[in-house]
């Protein structure tokens, strides 16, 4: 268990860093950026995986497995679909360079 204060500190630092980096993105790329961010929000799959995994190892019952696996499926759709869609969009921007 990591101390809550560390977790909150990480949250604040990353939010500030992200805010300033994203400010540099031109509006031309806002849709791919948003879609990329959208894919990133699927990292919650990490949480879904550990919760489901540990739940099974500590015998928490089948209901937690159903909820956990559903969470994994949803997050995986988000991650894989999000990055895929972003990639397709960016390729459209790129192809006319050549």
């Amino acid at each position, binding site marked *: 268990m990591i101390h809550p204060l560390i977790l909150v500190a*990480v949250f604040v630092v990353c939010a500030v860093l992200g805010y300033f980096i994203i400010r540099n993105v031109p509006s031309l790329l806002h849709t791919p950026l948003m879609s990329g*961010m959208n894919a990133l929000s699927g990292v919650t799959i990490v949480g879904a995986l550990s919760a489901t995994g540990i739940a099974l190892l500590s015998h928490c019952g089948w209901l937690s497995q159903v909820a956990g696996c559903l969470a994994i499926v949803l997050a995986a759709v988000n991650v894989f679909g999000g990055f895929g869609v972003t990639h397709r969009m960016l390729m459209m921007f790129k192809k006319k360079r050549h």
Partner: protein
Amino acid sequence: MDVYQIIISSVLALVVLQGISMMSRVKTAVAGNFLSAVAVLTGIAVTLVFNEILSVWTIWPAIIVGALIGSVVAQRVKMIQMPQTVALFNGLGGGASALVGLLSAQGVGFNSLQLAAIGEGGFEGFVRFTSLLAVGVGMITLVGSLVAAGKLHRVLPQQPMVWRGHSLCTLLFLLLTIGCIVAGVFFYSSLLIAGTFIFASLFGLWFAVRVGGADMPITISLLNSLSGVAGAIAGMAISDVFLVAVGAIVGASGLLLTQIMCRAMNRSLASILLGGRPSRNTRNLQLTLENEQLIKRVMDLEKKIQELEALVKNLEDRVAVLTQQVDEAEKTGSSEETTAAGVLAAAKDVIIVPGYGMALAQAQYQVRQLADKLQSRGARVRYAIHPVAGRMPGHMNVLLAEADVDYDQLFEMDAINDDFARCDAVVVVGANDVLNPAARDAEGTPIYGMPVLNVDAAPEVIICNRDLKPGYAGVENPLYTRAKGVYLELGDAKETLQHLMADL
């Protein structure tokens, strides 16, 4: 163990940030996206190893099913469906975070070591609070995104839906959600979990149905931000640094985009969340239910009158246009210059203004062909992109990119607004509110004060819109009735553009 996890997570978070910063330039954007994806996959692998759950069989089929669905949808979806796809994916992420919160709120998903640490440090309140918060924010994201996707996919009505006592209910659900979450700090009860789940869902539904089509860019970026925040909070609940870090980055970025969109529309976030027309909404909040019903009837009547007025106005406009066209036809005998095609043929500097109508008509290819044709005649062609044109941030850019328009030709509003006065002709394709000059001086209308493209400064304006009806904001566009230099090519943009090209 914890120290290693923190270090590795921080490094991965930095990689993600690097990937995002590479997305600020077209050249490196593809690599940036790839880098972020690799960082997330590494994060997944690290989690599996650190939690010693590689051997857990149930997670593998779940990952594979999700990955397959996601990849297939990503490959199959049409570019026109991008806004609703993004909204849908977004909602799923929020739903997943809510489920994680649901599990950790019940103490599921912690091993005995972690549970002992939580007990020792006295962190039970923190875990319960963050778990419930993840459930709340996650469910708002899920339900809100599903409604937004439904509206964008035209399964639900595009117009804002206002139910009985709407503002009151919205506020009530929000307060109840917050109440359940805060109570979770002090004690555990499955009722609190259920309460958070239900009230947050209701709040998501109530706030999202009220958002109209044109406010979608703002809503989508806000929901995007929320899904990140939901993930970060779920990460706090289960004490996963990587999840907290990336969630925070997404949350901040979504908030920034929301801010940019709001500024571009000259609207405050609150006015969009709490109701379409700000003045009515603040009143609504203070009214009792009875009064509200009365107001609703009056509003319905008012709406009907407005509709009738719009109808009459529309007819009047049509008559005006037809008379104008008859006048023009008479004049054509003496000079050839007065047709839209004639204007374009003579123009050396053309600016194209696309809007949501171009997306609806799928006319981006015709727009591109027209631009090519003009360029082959030696004209300079540029595109002026209003920040909120379309239904999601950067919507026009993606569509034009799909039609192979070089992004060097795309200009943001501030970069091109002074050039309208200097160009020879402007072609408007399916845009209305973003160029409505009334935004500068029609006080009291929803678009008053919104920065618009200075299309009215151009000497010749060719408008390829479906009709002359006011746009989403419901404000008449004085440009349509300008006496000189406006050519209305009404109808499906695909066809009108083709006619225009044929006449060139």
